[in-house]
């Protein structure tokens, strides 16, 4: 990405890093003016504070910019902030007129002499304060004039901006949070264990050193006849030396190769993720990618998922899906027998060839609606006419017939596009008229009034005069609002439509009711007169207007209803259901509005009608938030603990107390917004928040800033001993992705920020199921099996030395041949265990996703913990006792079958090591539940390798090459041809393994785990594999209906009808409507109210910033009506 920079730095701009504007001012003023200026391309990294940047349409904003001028009239620019806060509607920013007048005159821009004074870099996305001083005049700067890094420029050909903050000082980066080195809990546990093992090693060596000390005193001192003492070595010193000798011999308990093997296994399992075709998204050609190769097993232990909404759960696409017109529902496809068909990619779509202006990206499956349009059914026609007229969309037609709509909300865009395709093409508008093409004929409607949307009214209306001169009011809005204002004659139609609305809502669609009303000329002119008065009134203007709107919007005639789908990504509800079955808690953290988030909550099946209660926390001060949370708590746990328990308890150390999971009857949901969250995340309340939230099945946080997302994640990490995963796609998710144990980025979209800071990335949310339930579970299982086995094999190997010490005078004599000690970990046992940890699977992927409960043991750390480690140590002690004392007893005083020696040291060493190798192989076979050809090869290969290497090294040839290196010559031949040697090997191996078999068998019978049950089922079902997992659409029985298109912001209507645009015609565009207007309407750029973590007044501006002429101008009443 490159921005264009006017170079060099234009003089007269400065960044003030201090809240008071003193320090930098002098410098900037004194800079000499710059004369020759040109544009040149620069890399992002070379963009500096003070540069002027030119941005083109659809480009990312490179830094926090002060908007100077734009291609659009009134110096407006449209930006999309989905990357920042997840909101999908376009927002408008406007430059100060003094800079805006310069347009794209680069010379003027470069020589402009001004000074910017602003707040220091901070992470508040919703506010900005500063001033621009030019020629002694001060202009106030607020958030409306600032383009933040991470936004995308839309529908604006170009704009110039002055860099205020660059790089890490941008608000986006300030929200990004710290990058921490991530390690898995197993890693941490392993470190603790290795320390313990070190301790244990020292303990063993001390025992043996003391033993040596005693032995030297009691026997060694008398044995000097045959083994003279070295000079100066008395018993105590010998004990000291022995300690270190045993440190060397027993160091195999501290598995150095463990770390290497662990990394290899993780790498292998990461490759499986990269290679998985079931996590490959064909349409974007994006495979899954494990960007971090050290966190795999953590994927099998996730307890909390924090998900972004926009772009993660949803596709960020609105589609017109269904509608009900005059009591008839359209949109479903029926088979020959009348049953409803599932709509998928192969379903026949409507052919738009009859309509040259149609948008071919729009697809609709129900042919009957097209037929109805073609038959010129009057209701259908007025339905689409309404959709084509009643909106605030603007059209752009650069090439004849290629229309481009600029909708403030995607919902509106979807509705107008639908109308366009069905033959009611909205073509252009002026402040007084709307031009549409109705079934090929162009008509121009006179636009008389826009009764704009706001959050209370939840509807909008337009009053138009048709070419025939008929006056008509068209209204669309939330069904509850529209239904209250319908004419009595519509009762019958209302019932039918209500049924349809319920049906639509049940499928998670956003619904709108449409109605119209014919007006008579007299009444309207009277109304308009009053409207004009009201809109120019100085007092209670809003209320007066509202009353007028109420008055005219009554006795409406119902036309029908629309259903818009905020398209979820494929399989999201199913994935969430699966993850919920695996006892994973999903919290949605979104910057979007509460209603949108709630709606998505319902359509994802996270919120359900049948839930006992859904708590909404949206208070604006700490006490209310606390009260609301308390109420929620006491509803869920009546008569439970008192508030005192919610204070974070601190034990003596600095570690906060871990909050245990609590049980609750019933299902609850919690929705909390950003303001409340800011208070709830304070120290005094965080525990209350956490415990309340954890009782709920679903938690949705809306209107949260990126940093708050991270704070929520940190909160859970702090008090819950649980593994967290954050998934998101945009720059606003970076902080939580970094904060969580595992960060997942959705790739294949526009932005790469989230992916770049993530640990895993893939294209679709639904792949999360496979990542966790299949890859994560396998990785965890394999890692745990590996660790248990690895510790077992090394401990068993080492402890035999310990027992032998008692029979060799604690002289640090090894039991095994030196070569064996060297090769044991490298050659004889490395590959089988590696094979196990790369290929093992208890049940295959299909069964894993069929039984999500299989995931639960991972969350509870059941496969590898301190207890498991202790058990496997005990097991090794047992095995080492068997492996030493069975050969010991069997070889004691015995001889070969020809009377020769066999109880010698070398034969004994060979016997012990053969027993060991065979036992650990058997044990591995017992642990291995998935014997692929590779595993077979590794296991048998290792055994064969052992015997081959042993016989080779003990052969005459090796000895002749180097007598000192291979002193064991002939041992294998002389010892392994004896039946009693083999019988001893068999006995010790069986004695090591059979108790394990019996124990496991009894455990399966007496206390079967979920794994045992599923594996049993798999066995039973081997003959008949189960049907593939259901992918059917989850139908909700909900009757809950969403209101108006939620991503809509109020006040667009003013802009559309404003006359002032004429003062400043568009420079580049000659056709179509050019928007303009006063800017007040655009103030809610996503978070108008803002939030304040500290509870300070939000709108308090620094007093030294003067009210500028522009601000004064803004308070002037709009004379439009």
């Amino acid at each position, binding site marked *: 990405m490159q921005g264009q920079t006017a170079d060099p730095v234009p003089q007269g701009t400065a960044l003030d890093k201090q809240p008071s504007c003193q320090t930098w001012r002098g410098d900037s003023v004194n800079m000499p003016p710059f004369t020759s200026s040109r544009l040149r391309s620069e890399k992002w990294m070379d963009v500096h504070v003070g540069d002027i940047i030119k941005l083109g349409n659809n480009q990312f904003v490179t830094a926090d910019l002060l908007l100077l001028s734009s291609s659009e009239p009134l110096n407006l620019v449209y930006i999309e902030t989905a990357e920042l806060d997840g909101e999908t509607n376009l927002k408008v920013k406007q430059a100060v007129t003094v800079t805006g007048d310069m347009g794209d005159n680069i010379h003027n821009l470069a020589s402009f002499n001004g000074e910017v004074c602003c707040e220091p870099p901070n992470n508040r996305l919703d506010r900005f304060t500063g001033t621009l001083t030019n020629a002694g005049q001060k202009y106030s700067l607020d958030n409306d004039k600032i383009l933040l890094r991470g936004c995308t420029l839309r529908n604006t050909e170009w704009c110039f901006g002055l860099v205020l903050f660059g790089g890490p000082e941008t608000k986006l980066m300030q929200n990004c949070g710290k990058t921490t080195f991530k390690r898995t809990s197993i890693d941490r546990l392993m470190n603790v264990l290795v320390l313990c093992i070190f301790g244990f090693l020292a303990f063993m060596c001390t025992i043996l050193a003391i033993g040596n000390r005693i032995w030297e005193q009691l026997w060694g001192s008398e044995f000097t006849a045959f083994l003279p003492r070295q000079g100066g070595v008395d018993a105590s010193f010998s004990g000291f030396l022995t300690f270190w000798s045993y440190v060397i011999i027993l160091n195999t308990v501290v598995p150095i190769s463990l770390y290497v093997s662990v990394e290899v296994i993780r790498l292998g399992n990461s490759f499986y993720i990269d290679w998985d075709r079931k996590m490959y998204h064909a349409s974007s050609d994006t495979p899954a990618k494990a960007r971090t190769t050290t966190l795999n097993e953590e994927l099998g232990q996730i307890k909390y998922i924090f998900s972004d909404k926009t772009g993660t759960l949803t596709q960020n696409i609105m589609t017109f899906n269904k509608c009900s017109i005059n009591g008839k529902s359209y949109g479903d496809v029926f088979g020959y027998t009348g049953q409803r068909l599932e709509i998928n990619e192969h379903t026949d779509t409507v052919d738009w060839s009859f309509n040259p202006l149609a948008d071919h990206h729009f697809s609709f499956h129900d042919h009957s609606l097209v037929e109805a349009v073609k038959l010129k059914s009057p209701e259908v026609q007025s339905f689409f006419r309404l959709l084509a007229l009643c909106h605030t969309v603007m059209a752009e037609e650069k090439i004849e017939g290629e229309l481009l709509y600029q909708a403030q909300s995607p919902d509106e865009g979807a509705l107008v596009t639908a109308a366009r395709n069905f033959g009611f093409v909205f073509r252009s508008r002026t402040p007084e008229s709307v031009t549409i093409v109705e079934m090929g004929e162009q008509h121009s409607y006179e636009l008389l009034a826009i009764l704009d949307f706001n959050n209370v009214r939840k509807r909008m209306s337009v009053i138009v005069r048709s070419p025939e001169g008929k006056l008509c009011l068209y209204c669309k809005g939330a069904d509850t609002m529209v239904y209250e204002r319908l004419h009595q004659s519509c009762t019958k139609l209302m019932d039918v439509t209500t049924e349809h609305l319920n049906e639509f809502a049940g499928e998670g669609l956003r619904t709108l009711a449409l109605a119209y009303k014919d007006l008579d000329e007299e009444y309207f002119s009277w109304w308009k007169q009053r409207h004009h008065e009201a809109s120019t009134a100085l007092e209670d203007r809003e209320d007066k207007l509202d009353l007028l709107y109420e008055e005219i919007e009554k006795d409406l005639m119902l036309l029908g209803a629309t259903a818009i789908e905020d398209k979820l990504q494929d399989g999201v509800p199913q994935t969430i259901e699966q993850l919920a079955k695996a006892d994973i808690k999903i919290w949605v953290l979104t910057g979007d509005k509460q209603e949108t988030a709630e709606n998505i909550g319902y359509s994802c099946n996270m919120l359900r009608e049948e839930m006992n209660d859904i708590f909404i926390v949206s208070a604006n001060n700490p006490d209310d938030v606390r009260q609301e949370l308390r109420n929620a708590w006491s509803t869920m746990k009546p008569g439970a603990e008192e508030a005192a328990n919610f204070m974070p308890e601190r034990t003596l150390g600095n570690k906060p107390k871990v909050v245990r999971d609590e049980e609750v009857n019933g299902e609850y949901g919690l929705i909390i917004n950003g303001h409340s969250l800011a208070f709830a995340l304070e120290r005094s309340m965080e525990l209350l928040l956490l415990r309340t939230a954890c009782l709920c099945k679903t938690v949705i946080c809306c209107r949260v800033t990126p940093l708050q997302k991270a704070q929520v994640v940190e909160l859970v990490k702090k008090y819950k001993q649980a593994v967290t995963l954050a998934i998101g796609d945009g720059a606003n998710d970076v902080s939580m992705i970094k904060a969580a144990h595992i960060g997942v980025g959705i790739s294949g979209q526009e932005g790469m920020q989230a992916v770049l800071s993530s640990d895993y990335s893939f294209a679709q949310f639904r792949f999360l199921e496979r990542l966790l339930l299949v890859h994560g579970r396998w990785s965890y299982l394999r890692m745990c099996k590996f660790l248990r086995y690895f510790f077992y094999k090394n401990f068993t190997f080492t402890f035999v030395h310990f027992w032998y010490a008692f029979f060799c005078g604690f002289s640090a004599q090894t039991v095994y041949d030196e070569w064996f000690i060297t090769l044991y970990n490298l050659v004889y046992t490395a590959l089988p265990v590696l094979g196990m940890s790369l290929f093992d699977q208890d049940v295959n992927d299909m069964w894993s996703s069929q039984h999500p409960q299989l995931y639960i043991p991972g969350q509870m750390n059941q496969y590898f913990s301190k207890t498991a480690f202790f058990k496997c140590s005990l097991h090794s002690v047992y095995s080492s006792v068997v492996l030493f004392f069975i050969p010991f007893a069997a070889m004691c005083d015995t001889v070969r079958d020809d009377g020769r020696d066999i109880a010698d040291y070398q034969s004994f060493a060979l016997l012990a090591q053969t027993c060991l190798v065979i036992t650990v192989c058997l044990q591995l076979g017992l642990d291995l539940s998935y014997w692929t050809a*590779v595993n077979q090869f590794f296991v048998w290969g290792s055994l064969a390798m052992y015997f081959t290497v042993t016989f080779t090294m003990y052969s005459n040839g090796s000895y002749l090459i180097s007598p000192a290196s291979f002193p064991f010559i002939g041992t294998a031949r002389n010892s392994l041809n004896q039946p009693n040697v083999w019988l001893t090997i068999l006995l010790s191996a069986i004695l090591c393994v059979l108790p394990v078999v019996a124990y496991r068998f009894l455990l399966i019978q007496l206390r079967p785990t979920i794994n045992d*049950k599923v594996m049993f089922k798999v066995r039973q079902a081997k003959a008949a594999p189960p049907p593939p997992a259901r992918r059917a659409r989850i139908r909700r029985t909900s009757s809950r209906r969403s209101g108006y298109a939620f991503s809509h912001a109020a006040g667009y209507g003013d802009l559309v009808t404003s006359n002032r645009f004429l003062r400043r015609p568009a420079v580049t565009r000659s056709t179509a409507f050019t928007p303009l207007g006063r800017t007040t309407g655009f103030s809610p750029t996503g978070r108008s109210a803002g939030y304040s973590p500290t509870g300070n007044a939000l709108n308090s501006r620094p007093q030294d910033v003067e009210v500028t002429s522009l601000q004064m101008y803004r308070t002037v009443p709009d004379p439009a009506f």
Partner: protein
Amino acid sequence: MMKEELETANRPDNTAFTQQRLPAWQPMLSAGIVIPGFVLIGLAFIGIGVALFIASQNITVLERDYTGVETVSDCYKCSNPSVKNCTCKLDFSLSNLFEGPVFFYYGLSNYFQSQRAYGASKDEYQLSGDLDYFKTPNSACSPYQYDANNNPIVPCGSLANSMFNDTFKLYQMVNGTKKLVPFDGKGIAWWTDYNIKYRNPSVTPLKNAFNGTVKPPFWSKPAYELDTSDPSNNGFVNQDFLVWMRRAALPDFRKLYRRITEGDYASGLPAGNYSLEIAYNYPVLSFGGRKKVVFSNVSWMGGKNQFLGIAYLVVGSLCVVMSMVMLIVYAKFKFPEDDK
């Protein structure tokens, strides 16, 4: 078509390996395998145990301590280390034929041949006949590397120096006269030790190779005079030396001294009275050691060892018992199939 290929350029390969679909055998600890398995293993072990036990029972072992701790013992007189060239007698009688071939062992207790420093105190190169190491023995041999006059000791080291040097002669008392039982000292060491591992330097006569070296201090004669009658049993390939040099794993051990395979005794030692004449040279009492002689014959499973047979019987029985327990548990708690 080309476009399609481009679009799926990143699609991972569809192989059984990358998709983790490798065909595999998935064994499971089901009752149908485990319980019969335990019964079978149990029965097999009991069978082996019985065979081992019988084999071991059939082996005759005659063991006599001759350290001379008790004053009644004839060897008591020799137990004092100051007494040199002492000979003592050990009488015993056999009431039945001691079936042959009979192996004659000497045994030592509380003798730590397994001590690391002791076992390492030798020079493999020297013992394989490398003359360079005759002059400069391995330092591991210290303090038996050089003598006081700085002459290299050959063979060097504690292990060789402490070679067992009691000698035995067995007489059968036939009608009051002593009849020498012929001992066979050949082939008592491992073939590999005799032929490969230990070699005399190829110098004739052997004595010349040892010029400039001294014998180990505890030895009464140098290595090249261990068996002057048989050059193939002399020097480093002397069978007694080889047997000694194969150090024992445990502090109590026995080593083969002679086989009784010839003449009238080829089929064993007939019933009767015997007298063992011992040249008592080897001091063990100073470190609490014991010396013994052992007459034993062997079976297919080697020397007498009750442990293995009993262990097999016990483990076999436990397996059978365990299978019963598991059967009961299985019948009673039967794997809950229905739920989930």
